[in-house]
Structures are given as C-alpha cells and as structure tokens.
C-alpha cells in the first residue's frame, strides 16, 4: 500500500476567476443558443403538425426536452450573467419555469382547445368553431343547474366552519385524552374522498343493509333512502363532504387558537366577561384572519367537489347533486367532448378567480370594522 500523498494548500493550483465580461458573454450566448434551439423545435414541430412541412418529430416530446434544456440554460445564464444576484434568482426561477410548463401553458393552451369542436370520435379531428362552445354553454341547463348546486355547496362551508370552530374550541380546552381526540378528529381528512364515498355513501348508508339505514329505520324513518330525493340527497352529499373536510378547517382554527395570546383571555376573565362575551368580543375577532384563510381555502376546495358526487349519486337524482366538475367530467370523459368540456372548465376557472377576488375584497372591507384584527 503506498502512502497517501500529502496535499498542502500552497501546493494546490489556484484557478483564476473568469473575466466578468467574458462570463456575461458566455451567459448571454448560452441563453440565446438555448432559446434558438427551443424556438426552432417549436417551429419545426408546429409546421409539421400543421401539415405545412414534411420534416418533424413523431410527437411533441422533443419540444418538451428542448424546453427543459432551455430552462436549465436560463438558470445557468442567470448565474453567469448576474453572479450572486443570479444565484439568488435560482431559489425561485426553477419553480417559476415549472409552473409555467404545467399550469400557465396548459391553461392558455386550454383556451385554444375551448374554441374548437373536438369530439374524440370525430373523423375530422379538432375544428375551430369560434364562440359556438361559449354560446352552447350559456344555453346548457345542466351546466347552470350544477352552478346552482355549487351555491348550496359553498354555503355549506359556513356550516362546516361553525362545527369546526366548536370542535377546535373543544380540543383547545383542557379536556381528557385531548391528544387522542386531535388525532382521531383528523382521521377523516386523511382518507381519500373516493374511499369515503364507498365506505359511507355506498356501504354505511346503503338502503338495505347499511348500518345508518338500519339506525334510521330504528328511529322511525320507514324508507331511509339517502340519495333518492333532491334535498335529502344534497344533504347527504354535504354530510359526506363535511365529514372529510371539517377536520381541515378544525386543524387550522386549532392552530390559530393555540397561537392566541393567553393574557388577553385572562384579563377578560378578571374583568368579569362571560364565556359567551369572551368568545364574541375577543376570540372570534382575533381568529378572523385564520377563519378567513380557512374558509377561503375550503371554498376553493369545495368549488372542485366531484369525487364524492361521481361515486355516490352520479349527479342524481335528476341533477340535484351534480357539481360543475362532475358535469365537466361526464362531458369530457363519458362523451369525449373535449372542446366543449374545456370551454366549461376554462369559464369555470375564470368565474372562480373573479368570485374569490371579490370575496377577498369584501372580507377585507368587513374585517376593517374589527379593530382588534
């Protein structure tokens, strides 16, 4: 065995840092080369797909690879051109480029599809059809029926919030087995809504042998059909959804309650405030920021409600439990109506953005009335 060579700092060769101007030039060159490569790939494949040239790839995958190369080149060129500032940009840039690829691009490309007649069974493929899909959507009673149901489902979030607040207060109090209950109450949130719809909607609530149906019979309900009449079906769907979702609101509120300064509550108690007064005058206003966050997040989730409905009622009876997403699912998946389905989805997306923007503005204005917040 030969002895290990000894290395000293003085013996190591010192590499001179590249000239900043040269480094910037390399960065610029890298960026433009990668950009040229990416644009060339898009152009070649675009012309080939449009049938204007005979040269192209079998699919769009090489364009994706070109995008990945371009993204890496953009990041590298930032470092080369801007040094430390470019390195700082790397904290955000990859995430931004990823979002651009998987969120922004599909959304914009979706608009392109939304204005076309694209039935997957059609022999002619995708055809641009202007605003036909939009006009059809305005006159589609199923879509607007589902939209009406969404109002009910969104309003149900307020009920879920009230229940979740009660549970959070309970779990924040000094009760026995508090840790156990915290975990136990979280369990439904850990379950997939699909599993819940099968385990509860199609098993526990099953008309013939379901334990909940048996219990309902025992309590005097002769025909405990949970999904056969519009309002009972809606209420059942909301109950299933609430079972999954309330723990989510509850855990956010619980975190808020635990972060609340204890001295304020103690001061209120010393001043003789009742529990009810302490809640309305102190706890509730202090919890408003957390509450608003929880409610807005829940509304966003709620507007995408579909899995429980698809599994349990398929939107019935007569569309009473249909949601916009479950309707789009049918339009797209069962009917292969890609163009129209995409129009419905894009329009719904725009509506959600507008609705949430207005909602947040109103909430901000309302919260200013509470000086404690």
């Amino acid at each position, binding site marked *: 065995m030969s002895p290990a060579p000894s290395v000293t700092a003085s013996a190591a060769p010192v590499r001179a840092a590249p000239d900043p101007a040269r480094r910037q030039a390399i960065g610029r060159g890298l960026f433009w080369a990668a950009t040229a490569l990416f644009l060339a790939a898009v152009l070649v494949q675009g012309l080939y797909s449009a049938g204007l040239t005979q040269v192209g790839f079998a*699919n769009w995958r090489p364009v994706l690879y070109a995008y990945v190369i371009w993204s890496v080149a953009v990041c590298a060129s930032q470092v080369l051109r801007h040094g430390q500032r470019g390195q700082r940009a790397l904290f955000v840039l990859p995430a931004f480029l990823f979002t651009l690829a998987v969120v922004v691009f599909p959304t914009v490309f979706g608009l392109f599809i939304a204005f076309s*007649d694209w*039935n*997957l*069974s*059609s*022999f*002619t*493929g995708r055809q641009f059809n202007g605003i036909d899909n939009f006009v059809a959507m305005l006159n589609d009673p*199923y879509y607007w029926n589902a939209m009406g149901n969404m109002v009910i489902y969104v309003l149900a979030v307020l009920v879920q919030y009230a229940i979740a607040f009660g549970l959070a207060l309970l779990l924040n109090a000094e009760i026995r087995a508090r840790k156990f209950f915290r975990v136990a109450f979280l369990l439904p949130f850990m379950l997939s809504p699909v599993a819940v719809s099968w385990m509860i909607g199609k098993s526990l609530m*099953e*008309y*013939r042998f379901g334990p909940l149906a048996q219990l309902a019979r025992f309590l005097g309900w002769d*025909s405990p*059909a*949970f*999904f*056969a009449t*519009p309002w009972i*079906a809606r209420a059942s769907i909301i109950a299933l959804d609430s079972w999954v979702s309330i723990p989510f609101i509850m855990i956010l509120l619980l975190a808020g309650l635990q972060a609340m300064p204890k001295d304020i509550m103690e001061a209120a108690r010393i001043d003789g405030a009742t529990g009810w007064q302490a809640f309305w005058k102190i706890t509730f206003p202090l919890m408003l920021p957390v509450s608003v966050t929880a409610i807005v997040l829940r509304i966003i989730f709620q507007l995408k409600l579909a899995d429980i409905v698809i599994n*349990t*009622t*398929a*939107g*019935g*009876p*007569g*569309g*009473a439990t249909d949601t916009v997403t479950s309707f789009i699912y*049918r339009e*797209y*998946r*069962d*009917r*292969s*109506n*890609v163009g129209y389905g995409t129009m419905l989805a894009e329009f719904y997306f725009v509506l959600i953005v507008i609705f949430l923007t207005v909602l947040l503005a109103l909430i901000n204005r309302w919260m200013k009335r509470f000086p404690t917040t």
Partner: protein
Amino acid sequence: MAKWSNDRLDILSVDRRRLLQGAAGFGMALGMGGGLAALSRTAVAQEGIRAQILQIPGVGAGSPGDADWQQVGELCLGATKQNVQEGEFAGVELTFMGLNNQNLHNLLFRGFLKPWETYTGAKITWIDLAQADYNPRLQQAIATGTVDFDILEMGAPFEGDVCGKGLASEMPDWVKAQIDMDDYVDYLKAPVGTWDGKTYRISIDGDCHNFNYRTDVFSDPELAEAWKAEGGEGEWGVPKTWQQVKAATKFLKGKQVAGQDAYGYLDPLKPWGGFGFYFLASRATAYAKHPDDKAWLFDIDTMKPRINNSAWVRTIQDVVDSLPYQPADQLNADPNTTGFQQFLFGTGSMISWWGDIGSNARTSDSSVIGEVCGFDILPGSDDVYNNKTGQWDKLPSGPNYAPNMAYIGWGIYVMARVDSDSKKHKAAWSAAAHLGGKDLSLWTSAYPSGFQPYRKSHFNIQEWTEAGYDEAFISGYLASQSNSYNHPNAAIEPRIPGIFQYYSVAEDELAKVFAGQVDAQTGADNIAAAWEKITDSIGREQQIKLYKASLGL
C-alpha cells in the same frame, strides 16, 4: 316461448352430434384408420378436458380464484401447443388493455394466460380499467395517436372507433381455425367482428339481456290467491309481456314473500357511464323493434333518432309509472346495484340483465337466490310500433318479442401496431386465441367471469349437468340465451363511433324524467335533439355509412 327454447336446444345438440358424425364419416371415407383413431382420441381427450375444467372449482364450491383460473388456462393450452413451439416467443413483450369489473375480466385473463406465458416465453403487461374509465381511455388513445397496447378487450359497439379507423390487425387464418369460429352462434358471425370484409375480432362473450325472475314468487299460492282476489288478469305466473310485468309490479307492492317485502321489476335508474341505457333499451325493444324493420334506434338512411317516437316514449312512461312500486332508493341504483346487491341478494322478483345473473346465481358466494332463479327471453308486447306508418301493429302471430343483443359481447382484438413485427404479431394473436379458445370459453360461460355463452357448443345441457348444474335450472338459463341469440327479431345495436356518447347524454335526460322534472315526451325530445348534435359533431355522412356497414348493408 319455453317450448321453442327446448326445441332450439335439441336442434343445437343434434347439430353437434351431426358434426361429430360428419367428422367420423370424413375419416372413414379417406380410409385413414390411424387418422380416425387419432381424431377419436383427440375428441375424447377434448371432452375429458371440458369435463375436467367444469369441475374447477365445482358448482356450489364457492367463487373461483386465481389458482383455479391458472389451472383452467393450463388445461386449455392444447390448441396453442399445436401452433406454437415451446419458448417461441421468448423476449416478446405485449401490453394488454382490458377491464377489472367486479374483479373479473383482466383478473381472469392473467390467470388464463400465465401458463401461456410460461410455455411461449412471452411476457404480458396489464392495463386494468374500471368500466367507466374504459371508453375515455380508449377514445383518448385513438384520438391522440397514443395506442399503447397490443391486445385489447373491447365490445363490438366500439368497432366503429377502432376497426373503422384501421387500428386493428386482421385475423390470420390459423387463428380462425384454432378458435373454431364456425362454432359461434349465428348473430356473432359476420358482419359482427368484421369491417370491409376483414375479420378482426375473437369473440369471448355473447351479450344479450335476458329476463331473470324469481320462481318462488311466481309460484306462491298465497300470491296467486291474492292476485285473483284483486282481479288480476289470468293466472298468477311469470309475466310474458311488459304489460304483464307492469301489472305484476304494481300488485307485488306491499306484499310479502318468505317474510320479506316483495317487489316486482327493478329498473336500474342511476347513470352508469352510458351502460345504463341498455336497460331502458331492453324494455323498449318489444315496442320499438318491428319485425319488418332492422332499425329501432336510428333511421338507417338519415341517422334521425327514433328515441322520441311513440314506442320509446311509452317505454319511458312505463318506467315512470313503475317507480312508485319499486324500492325507495331505486333512483340511486345503477345496474351493478340492481343486479348484484338487490336481485342476487333477494330484493325484487324480475330483472333484465346480461347472462351474469344466471352464471352467478349458483356459483357466487353472495347469491341467495340460486334455487329460485328462473330465466326467459325478454318480455314481449301485445303491440309493436311501426315507425314507417306511425301506427301500433298487433301481429297475427301474437305478442312481439325482440331480445336486446345489448353490447354484442366482449371480444379480443389485436392492434395493427404489431403487424410490422412478425414474431410479436403471432404472439399477440396466439394470446388472444388462447383466451378465445373453445374449451376455455365453456368454463367462462359456466362460472363468474363477466362473459356468457356464445358458442353453439355451449348449449350442450349434458356437459352442464355433469358439472353439477341442476337440469331444470341450466336448461332454462341456456334456453333464455340461445333463444335470444337466435331470435328472428333480435334487436342489434348500431356499431358506430361514439355510441356511448349517445347513451351517456340519454342517461342525463332520463335522470331528469325519472326525478319528475320533465315529462317523458319532453325528455325524449331533448335526447333526440342532443343525439342530432352528436351525429353532426362526429360527422353525419360518416355515421350513416358506418351504420350501414355495421348492419352488413
């Protein structure tokens, strides 16, 4: 009907005997004593295998599992060995796309093909799909040019999408001989499975809806007495027409049989990815399928929907009228619920379904009606709508019967993408032929598999009774199938692209009718309008052309 069924079975049995006699005579004529002996040995060995596989696991021995499927696959490997050398497909990798409904279909195929993989050296990768995912997955693969499977389990209604677009591989002659296509029941022969004269499909199923009923309910003396007392028409017995089904359903509401609430006919009313429409169609065919007219869903020359004619509106109204007499949760019952959670569990006394009810009644662990389940072809109607004249006709021969050949059965298709590789091509067709083999198919028609009898050789009662089936039970079951398949007025659905789009839209509109939001005529008009839009969207001229091609016109 029952008499005709027994006659038909006799005819089928005679055909089979004649076939064997003919084979023996052919051998003798050639003076090939040794050849005849070999032929006889093969026939005896084949009969031995058929008897042997029917004992796996045995009728009444519970639901079969993977070990049983593998054993059946191993025993049925003889036909493959005649065309393929051991290890011939070493290194070949195939992808198979199919269903996993009720833990059947692909799960069985895996077991059946395991010995085939061991023998040939090929390897199969599986794509399992739920029923509702099947159509969109297939359509997306076709439309986006991303067919990523070599072998496909597919129903005939999708042939327009696949074969009509040149995506399937044409069946080689050696496969036709291996699977004995002549043995298919007549309605599964060309034009089904063919496009432009080329054969693409190996049938593994022979779908039709039959009528399943409870023998104990319709022979109950107390109910017979009550029927008379309440002024019921004729004797209390199994309904033969939809008019009688309606009357029996109303009568049974509030009655009890064996201490349980009795119900009459069960309609599956919850949408089921388009497949629920078949159940309305089964009620409609007797009204809408006139013996003088091949078409019953669309006009052949124009694709104009008939869904809003008097026959269909009457059908829809029948369902609406029956709703108050069905279980309270019926609006939320899909076909699976109706067949497997209601009827096999003892709720309801009449149901239309595919042959699965019969093959599960005595072999599934969850069935409680194995001893009291009877079968027939779908009920008829005292009158039938003539779409050409716009009149209701009373036929001189009596009620009009028109069994619904719902879905025309599952088949195995090989995709055209294997055509460029001769080894892969042969391997794919060999795997498909193994699944569509004559002996193996006997087992799938006798046990829970998702498939029902579809070959003439499946109607040999003796094989079934030797396997442990009660003769009366199995005779009735097989008669309901063969009489449906061979019925001169059978209703065969159009094999056109996007057929499930039509069905899916109809389900949505029907849900509104059944929930009482719109009347039957308005609902039917809405469906017709939506169907016209779909036809225009897919391409009317193309649809008409394919519709005619699918009918062999």
